[in-house]
């Protein structure tokens, strides 16, 4: 095992990675921007390096600044967390070229899965079901209409992610408008104006499979996570197991996720995202995320496996330390965001009170504490509130207590939304889909 790891990220994920790195007796090195100097992860690392001003492009996304921090601190390996440089193949190559260990998948796997068109073609070859859609970029709005996929249809930026550059059209006029908007944004956000169309499944569930590509080349699947509670196509709540997936469908999805990982020579932690039609018990591949996911704790809670520890072992070429991955019980994660709970608008500000709930079946991965300032420069995630139960009913009961017991003051958070969700008959029944939040706000 290497003796030091630089964590090229911030907030809750930096803190979470640092926790496991230190537990393994490895030196943890943090990097931080001027805006983040007072966050807990900076103090908790063994060493911390200021890498630039608040703007991500001048700090966390500045490859030279991050590599210079690694050089100055003699870091032996780099863990990118999620977001920022986590799925940047050029950065992964640079880390390796500079003689450091990259704690993530091979750069070629990142490249293959980073482009939605190549990813989908590769998955089709590997025998993974893919959504009906265009195979090549669609050049203009006329061609989008002529593709004849029917309605509703999803318009997606090929280089996009995180809900940015996606919209659904319900008729020809809507498709023309959505196409032009998506193209302008794709160029501006991702420097790649390629647009794809996909048949949109209404009342679908968003279910993903956690995979681990081991050092010996085998790929294992560690169960699914249901991420159907979304606002603006972005996840808010994740749970495992999914209440929309039966045993037979689960077995097929896990097998397909393993084939997907094998097809790209995957190493480390990755996630195969799928769209599930819960009535037909069918699924199609959406995309593969070549990194640790925000919602990895729910998998950790039901499998007892520390995914960051396994990432470190795999990167060091060592065998993994778990023997069985049979999940037990039920886990739910709530993403506590700095945002208005009604309209979900961002709400940066000063945290005056921060009191977390605690208990055997409650896990809080937080990035902030009282006295911290939440700035508009980064995503609004303040903390991840995770609960565990022997079954879903127990997990829901714990969640109600935990949400009530989480006090954050000084800015708006979506905690009141979670209280509302936990009283919503559709969510409580387990029979919900990706349109749930929209229906709650209609």
């Amino acid at each position: 095992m290497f003796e030091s790891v630089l964590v090229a990220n911030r907030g809750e994920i930096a803190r979470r990675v640092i926790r496991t790195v230190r537990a393994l007796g490895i030196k943890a090195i943090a990097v931080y921007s001027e805006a983040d100097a007072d966050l807990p992860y900076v103090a908790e690392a063994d060493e911390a390096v200021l890498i630039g001003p608040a703007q991500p492009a001048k700090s966390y996304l500045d490859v030279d600044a991050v590599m210079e921090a690694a050089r100055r601190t003699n870091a032996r390996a780099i863990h990118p967390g999620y977001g920022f440089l986590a799925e940047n193949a050029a950065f992964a190559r640079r880390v390796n070229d500079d003689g450091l260990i990259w704690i993530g998948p091979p750069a070629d796997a990142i490249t293959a899965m980073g482009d939605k068109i190549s990813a989908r073609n590769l998955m089709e070859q590997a025998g993974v079901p893919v959504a009906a859609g265009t195979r090549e970029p669609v050049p203009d709005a006329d061609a989008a209409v002529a593709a004849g996929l029917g309605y509703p249809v999803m318009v997606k930026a090929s280089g996009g992610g995180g809900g940015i550059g996606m919209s659904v059209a319900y008729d020809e006029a809507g498709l023309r408008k959505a196409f032009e908007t998506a193209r302008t944004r794709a160029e501006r956000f991702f420097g790649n104006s390629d647009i794809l169309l996909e048949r949109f499944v209404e009342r679908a569930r968003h279910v993903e499979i956690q995979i681990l590509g081991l050092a010996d080349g085998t790929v294992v699947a560690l169960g699914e996570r249901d991420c159907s509670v979304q606002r603006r196509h972005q996840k808010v709540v994740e749970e495992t197991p999914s209440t929309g997936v039966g045993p037979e469908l689960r077995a097929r999805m896990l097998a397909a996720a393993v084939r997907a990982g094998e097809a790209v020579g995957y190493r480390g932690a990755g996630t195969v995202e799928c769209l599930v039609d819960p009535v037909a018990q069918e699924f199609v591949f959406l995309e593969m995320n070549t990194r640790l996911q925000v919602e990895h704790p729910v998998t950790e809670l039901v499998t007892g496996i520390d995914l960051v520890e396994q990432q470190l072992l795999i990167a060091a070429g060592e065998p993994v330390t778990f023997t069985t991955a049979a999940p037990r019980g039920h886990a739910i994660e709530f993403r506590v965001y700095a945002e208005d709970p009604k309209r979900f608008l961002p709400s940066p500000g000063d945290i005056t009170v921060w009191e977390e709930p605690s208990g055997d079946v409650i896990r809080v991965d937080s990035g902030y504490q009282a006295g911290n300032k939440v700035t508009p420069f980064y995503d609004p995630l303040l903390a991840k509130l995770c609960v565990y139960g022997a079954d879903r009913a127990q997990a829901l009961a714990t969640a109600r207590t935990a949400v009530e017991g989480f006090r954050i003051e000084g800015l708006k958070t979506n905690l009141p939304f979670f209280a509302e969700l936990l009283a919503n008959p559709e969510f409580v029944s387990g029979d919900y889909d990706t349109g749930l939040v929209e229906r709650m706000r209609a």
Partner: protein
Amino acid sequence: MSEVRAEMVANVWKVVAAEGDTVEEGDTLVILESMKMEIPVLAEDSGTLVSLKVAEGDVIQEGDLIAVIE
């Protein structure tokens, strides 16, 4: 006359409308960006956009004046 003010700290990502434009209630005037989210600022009344106080790249605070519609 109606004033459109910022609801949060944000960066001005895109200015869609221009002074002198005739706008309808619900039209997008400006798109803000904050915490990796795009937030359209909409006209709350129909009329003429007589004043636009922000430019792309500006950082605005909660309560700052964005536009005036008459």
